[in-house]
C-alpha cells in the first residue's frame, strides 16, 4: 500500500521548458480526434449516426450554400472578443469585461453612425470604428486604473462593469428618450427600439461568388496581425510578456508595470469595442441592447482566446473554429436532434481541445524511488519559470 502511494507521489506534472514543434501540432489534432470519438459514443448511445452527424456539421459550416458565409458571420464578433481576451490574458491581466466593452463600443459606434450620417461613406465607417475603439478602450481603462493604482481585483471589477454597461445600454433604448432611441412613430414610442442607421453607415462586404465576407472580419484579421506583431516584435510586447511571466522581475528591471496594465487593458478594450462597432456596422445597423446581451460574445471570446493559447494570430483560426461549431450546431439541431445534444457535443469538443493544451505546456514524469529525497529538496519544477524567467516563456 505505502509503496503504491509513494509511486503515485513520484508522478509529477511539470511545466515544459521547451515545447517541441511537433507537439504543438499533434496535441490539438489528437485532442480533436479524441473529442470526435467521445462525442461519437454519446451520439451512438442516443441513437444517432456519428459519421452522418459529423458530415452534416461539416457541410453546414463549410460546403453548404451560404455555410461558409455563416461561419464567418458567427466568427466575426468572437474574433474581436477573442483578441480582447488574448491580449490581456497574455500579460495575466484578467479582463473579463470584453462583454461590457463590446456594449460600450456598440453604443459609441451607433451614436457616431447616427450623428455623422451625412458624411461620405468611407469617413463614416472610419468614424464608427474610431468611436467603437474609444468606447471599448475607455470602459476597459476603468478596471485597468483600479487594478494598477488601487490594487482592486480586475476580474471582479471588469465583470461587474459588464452589468453596468448592459444596464446603461438598456436605459438608452428602453427607459429614456435618448438620442439612440427611435421616437419617430407612435408604434416605436410604445415598443422601444433603437434608431436605424442610414444605409451609408452599413459597412461594406466582400463577395466572391456566393461567399460574402463581412468587412468586420477583415478589420479583425488586420487587428490580429497588428497585435501579434506588437506582442512578438516590439519593446511594448516584450515588456508585456515579462510582466505576464514574472511580475517581480519586470519591476526590478524597471518596467513601469502600472502604466502597462492600464494600457494593455485599453488595447484589450479597444478590440472588444471594435467588435461592438462591427455588430452595428456589419450586422445590426441598430443598437439592440437585449439582443447583444443575449448573444454573450464577450464571454465566448474568453474561450476563443484560450483556445488560441493567447496568440493573437491564432485567434483568427480559433474564432473560425468556434464560429463553425456554432453555425453547424444550429444546422444540426431539429426535431430529431435536440439542442441539448448539440451543446453536449460542443462541450466535449471544447473540453478536449482546451484540455489538450495542458499536455502541450506540461509533461507528466515519474521519478525513480531512489531519487525522491534528492528531488524533494528542490522546488517543484512547475514553479521555476515564475521565479527565473526562461527564454522560452518570454518568447511565447
Amino acid at each position, binding site marked *: 500500500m505505502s509503496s503504491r502511494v509513494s509511486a503515485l507521489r513520484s508522478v509529477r506534472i511539470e511545466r515544459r521548458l*521547451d*515545447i517541441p*514543434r511537433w*507537439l*504543438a*501540432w*499533434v*496535441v*490539438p*489534432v489528437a485532442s*480533436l480526434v479524441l473529442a470526435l470519438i467521445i462525442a461519437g459514443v454519446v451520439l451512438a448511445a442516443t441513437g444517432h449516426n456519428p459519421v452522418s452527424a*459529423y*458530415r452534416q456539421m*461539416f*457541410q453546414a459550416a*463549410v*460546403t*453548404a*450554400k*451560404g455555410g461558409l458565409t*455563416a461561419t464567418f458571420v*458567427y466568427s466575426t464578433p468572437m474574433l474581436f472578443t477573442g483578441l480582447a481576451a488574448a491580449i490581456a490574458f497574455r500579460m495575466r491581466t484578467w479582463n473579463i469585461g470584453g462583454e461590457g466593452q463590446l456594449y460600450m463600443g456598440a453604443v459609441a459606434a451607433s451614436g457616431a453612425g447616427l450623428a455623422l450620417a451625412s458624411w461620405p461613406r468611407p469617413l463614416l465607417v472610419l468614424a464608427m470604428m474610431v468611436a467603437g475603439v474609444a468606447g471599448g478602450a475607455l470602459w476597459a481603462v476603468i478596471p485597468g486604473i483600479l487594478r494598477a493604482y488601487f490594487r482592486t481585483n480586475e476580474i471582479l471589477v471588469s465583470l461587474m462593469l459588464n452589468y453596468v454597461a448592459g444596464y446603461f445600454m*438598456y436605459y438608452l433604448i*428602453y*427607459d429614456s428618450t435618448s438620442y439612440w432611441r427611435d421616437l419617430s412613430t*407612435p*408604434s416605436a414610442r*410604445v*415598443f422601444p427600439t433603437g434608431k436605424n442607421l442610414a444605409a451609408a453607415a452599413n459597412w461594406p462586404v466582400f463577395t466572391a461568388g456566393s461567399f460574402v465576407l463581412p468587412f468586420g472580419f477583415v478589420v479583425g484579421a488586420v487587428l490580429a496581425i497588428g497585435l*501579434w506583431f506588437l506582442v512578438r516584435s516590439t519593446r511594448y510586447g516584450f515588456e508585456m510578456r515579462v510582466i505576464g511571466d514574472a511580475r517581480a522581475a519586470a519591476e526590478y528591471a524597471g518596467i513601469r508595470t502600472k502604466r502597462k496594465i492600464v494600457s494593455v487593458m485599453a488595447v484589450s478594450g479597444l478590440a472588444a469595442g471594435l467588435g461592438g462597432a462591427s*455588430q452595428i456596422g456589419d450586422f*445590426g445597423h441598430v443598437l*439592440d441592447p*437585449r*439582443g*447583444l*446581451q*443575449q*448573444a454573450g460574445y464577450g464571454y465566448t471570446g474568453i474561450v476563443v482566446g484560450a*483556445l488560441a493559447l*493567447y*496568440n493573437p*494570430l*491564432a485567434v*483568427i*483560426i480559433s474564432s*473560425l*473554429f468556434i464560429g463553425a461549431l456554432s*453555425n453547424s450546431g*444550429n*444546422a444540426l*439541431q*431539429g*426535431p430529431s436532434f435536440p*439542442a441539448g445534444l448539440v451543446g453536449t457535443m460542443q462541450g466535449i469538443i471544447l473540453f478536449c481541445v482546451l484540455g489538450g*493544451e495542458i499536455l*502541450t505546456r506540461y509533461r507528466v514524469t515519474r521519478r525513480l524511488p531512489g531519487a525522491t529525497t534528492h528531488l524533494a529538496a528542490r522546488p517543484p519544477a512547475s514553479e521555476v519559470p515564475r521565479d527565473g524567467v526562461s527564454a*522560452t516563456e518570454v*518568447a*511565447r
Partner: protein
Amino acid sequence: MKRPMVGVAAGLFAVGLVAAACGSSKSSTSPTTAQSAATAAPSGATTAPSGTAPSTTGKWTTSHPFVAAFIYVGAPSDAGWTHAHDVARLAVQSHFGGVVKTLYKEDVPEGPQVSQVINELINEGANAIFATSYGYQDAMEAAAKVHPNIFFEQATGTDQLANFAEYYGAGEDGDYLGGMAAGFASKSGQIGFVAPYPIPEVIREIDAFTMGARSVHPGATVRVVWTNTWFDPTKERAAAESLAGAGVDVLADGQDSPTTGQVAEAHNLPWVGYDSNQESFAPKSWLTGTTYNWAVYYIPDIQAMMNGTWKTHFYYGSLKNGFVQLAPFGPSLTSSQKAAILAKEQAIEAGTFDPFTGPITEQNGTIGVPAGKTLPVYTQTGLSKYSISWFVQGVIGSPKG
C-alpha cells in the same frame, strides 16, 4: 516559440480541411429537392404590404413537400410556451401527412444569431418560417424583404409586409379569468406575479390578470417581479421564491416553464399557470391558466399557403374560436367560484364583456381608458391593447422592468 501557437490553430484548420475533402465528396448525394422555392430571391427588394404574396399553388407532394419551419425561443420540453407551439407543429404534421414537412430550431436567442438561423432554415428548404417569440421580429422583417418568395410569420409582433404576417390571440381574456381564480383563492389579497420581459404583451397580460383579481377581490394587489428571460428555471425559481418570501398568498406567472408552480406547491400556495395545461407540475396548487391552441391557426394558415390563397394578415385568435383556452380548474376552487369564472368566459365569448373596457385606472391614479371605451386590439396610432405600456391600479412594480 510563437510558432507552436499558430501551429495549434493551423492544426485545427488542417483537420477541418481533411474533413472537408471527406465531407464534400458525399454531399452531392443529399437531397435538396425543396430548395428550389428558396433560390429565386432577388436581394434588396423592399416590398410594401400591398405587394404580392408568395405564389405556391399546387406543387406540393410527398416527394416535394411544403416545408414549414419554426423558430423556438426555448425547448419543446419546457412544458409551457414552446411546448404549446410544438404540440401544434405535430398536429400540423399529422393533419397534412407527408405533403408538409415540419422543422424547428430550439433555444434560439433573441439576438443577432437569429438572422443566421433564418438563413439556415432557408438553406434547409423552408417555404414558411414561423418565429414564435417577439424578439425575432426585426430579423424576420429584414429577411422577409430579402426573400419575397418565402412566407414569414411572426407571433406576438406588430409589423406586416406582403410576405410577412402576424399572429397571436387574446391571451389577456384568459388572463382576466385566471386573475379571477387568483382573486378567489387569495385570503390576504396579496398576489405575486413572475413576469418575463417588460414589453406590452406581458404588461397587457398582467393588467388583465390584475383587473380579473380585483373584480372578485376588491383591493387585491399584484406584486410583479421581472426575470428578464422567457425561459430560465433558475431565475424563475428565484423570482417565485422572492415573492413567496414577501408574503404573497397566491402565485402566478407569464414564463415559459412551470417552475413558479413548483415553488407554489412547495410553499402550499395556489398558483395560476400559463401557456399549457401545467396541472401535473403542482396538482394541489393548480388553479387554472391561459393556454394556447396554436394549431387552430397553423393548420388553416399553412393550407392557405399551399393553396395559393394566403394573404398577409394580423391574426388574433380568441376564446371563442378555441385559439385561447382556459385550462381545467384545480381542486381548490369552489363550484360557485368556478361558475362565476365560466359565466365571465361566456360573456367574453358572446362579446358582451371585454376586460379592456373603461373606466380603467392606471397605477398612478389617472384614468387610462375612459368609461364606455373599449380598446381595439392594435392600431398604428392611439391607445390599443397592443400599445399599453402602463400598469393598472393594484399592480405593485414598475412596467419598465
